[in-house]
């Protein structure tokens, strides 16, 4: 969105198109974290209802969206924490290939392949909020094995601790460390090739 466009409004006065798009985004986010369509629907519904109850004025749809996503994030964290008090379902137990593959960035001796070496990124903070960058990030995230993407977002966005992620997914602490390492290696490589590299 053009930051110079300022719309004063609240959830009740947002355009239907904006609300529909936001609901889609929220569902995608909640599904990724919860792994269940029903629970994702419920979480989004409750987050939207909470936002309507506490309707505040926002300068622009971007601020409104940031606020509602924050409510949803708390909702998702609540659900995940509540689940940990329940016995783990068999379907949630770790499968042998839970960790997903190690990205092919190291050689046999554990040194970077030449093509995969981390280059310097110039002024990396400048672009993080641009539509173009976020589209590249979205594509890179989607390219991760699903479990890696899920654990990465649980950690970085929902900000769950390692133990909470272990309890939620039936993983060991080492599993989680390995998954996060692999996810970060793969995302870093993807972002370097598609965004930060000269001429990308």
């Amino acid at each position, binding site marked *: *969105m053009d930051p110079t466009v300022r719309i004063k409004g609240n959830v009740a006065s947002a355009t239907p*198109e904006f609300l529909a*798009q*936001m609901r*889609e*985004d929220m569902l995608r*986010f909640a599904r990724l974290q919860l792994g269940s369509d029903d629970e994702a629907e419920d979480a989004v519904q409750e987050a939207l209802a909470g936002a309507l109850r506490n309707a505040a004025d926002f300068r622009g*749809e*971007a601020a409104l*969206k*940031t606020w509602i*996503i*924050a409510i949803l*994030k708390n909702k998702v964290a609540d659900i995940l924490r509540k689940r940990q008090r329940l016995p783990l379902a068999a379907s949630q137990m770790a499968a042998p290939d839970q960790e997903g593959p190690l990205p092919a960035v*190291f050689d046999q*001796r*554990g*040194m*970077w392949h030449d093509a995969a*070496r*981390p*280059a*310097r*990124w110039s002024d*990396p*903070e400048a672009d*993080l*909020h641009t*539509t173009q*960058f*976020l589209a590249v*990030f*979205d594509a890179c*995230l989607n390219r991760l094995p699903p479990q890696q993407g899920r654990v*990465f*977002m649980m*950690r*970085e*966005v929902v900000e769950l*601790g*390692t133990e909470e992620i272990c309890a939620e997914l039936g993983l060991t602490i080492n599993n*989680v*460390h*390995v998954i*996060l*390492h692999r996810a*970060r*290696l793969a*995302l*870093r490589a993807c*972002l370097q090739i598609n965004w930060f590299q000269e001429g990308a």
Partner: protein
Amino acid sequence: MLNCHDATFLFSQGRERKLTFSERMKVRIHTSICSDCTNFERQLETISGAAKAFAAHKGKTDD
């Protein structure tokens, strides 16, 4: 002596737990001779910021 695979694994874990003194020494020695892993360590912070930006903003200009 750590290789780059080991060093990046420790840098990654450093975002979830406090590394031990010995681990911190090992990665410092490694980065003192490896600019690739020095870049990697910095970029972990950027990737974390990107994930947060993505969750907060994604889709709002998808049309």
